[in-house]
């Protein structure tokens, strides 16, 4: 059920990337896809009544293995979120350059090989 809702969010983002004419809307669709995938990976590692993978002392380690959520997807997603910021800045700078060249955000107008 929850995974299905995540997938619906992903498909909405894909619709934005494929069907929209405005280049900012395409960037927003890309962001929505990124959010849904990050959330899905974190939700895969969740355990019922689980707690954060932080240990106080050596005695708590046994308890940690039985009760903690999965730390590996969290480590992956943490870097993925930061990488998303770099990709976003690249996309936005390309969009601003295209606006300066063509005077519009509409991608169907950007079919001329000017200059």
């Amino acid at each position, binding site marked *: 059920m*929850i995974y299905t809702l995540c997938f619906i969010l992903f498909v909405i983002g894909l*619709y934005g990337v494929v069907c929209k004419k405005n280049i900012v809307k395409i960037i927003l669709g890309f962001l*929505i896809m990124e959010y849904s995938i990050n959330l899905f990976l*974190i939700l*895969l590692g*969740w355990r019922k009544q689980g707690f954060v993978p932080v240990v106080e002392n050596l005695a708590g380690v046994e308890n940690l293995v039985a009760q903690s*959520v999965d730390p590996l997807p969290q480590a992956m997603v943490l*870097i993925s979120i930061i990488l998303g910021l770099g990709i976003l800045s690249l996309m936005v*700078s390309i969009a601003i350059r295209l606006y300066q060249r063509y005077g519009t955000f509409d991608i169907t107008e950007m079919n001329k090989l000017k200059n």
Partner: protein
Amino acid sequence: MIEALISMLLVFMIIAATIALEMTDLLSAVISIGAVGIVVSICFLLVGAPDIASTQLVVEVLTIVILIRATIRHDLVTIDGDREFFGLTVTIALLLVFFIFGLKAFWNLPEFGVPAISEFPDAASNHYLLKGFEETGSRNILAAIIFDYRGVDTFAQLCALFAGIWGAFAIMRVQSKKKKKKEDLYHDKK
């Protein structure tokens, strides 16, 4: 309890994402995407990932700032309407087919709330949880994985981040006047 809460938040995110994509005013669309990102952060907090939640919150604020920089001066130009009707219909039909076939992949996943590491005792995550404190001395297992067990991975990913920001800088760079003059001279000679 948490399942119902996360379902409600996901429905809210779906509504906000639809509004963001269908709004003609670009500034309102950017604000809607900010709502989606902050609700994602709340979801991370609920499922036991506070490190990810704080990172997501900071990155979300920066995302909104960058996107507003892209749209604020060009807000007057609004583009409404999608692409031509036939192509749009075919695309939506293909997206529906993709959705239906994609749903089949979810049948093989473990149930929500039962992670795969509880079924496989010798999974990598179990080793990190069991030995991480002893081997690295880090109380937070997440930090142990990022900086110790998979440190080379982190280094490579940060290189990719650096390359992305470098590319953005190279694209946004304004050409210096001196160089432009030289190019003009070259064209005149030609």
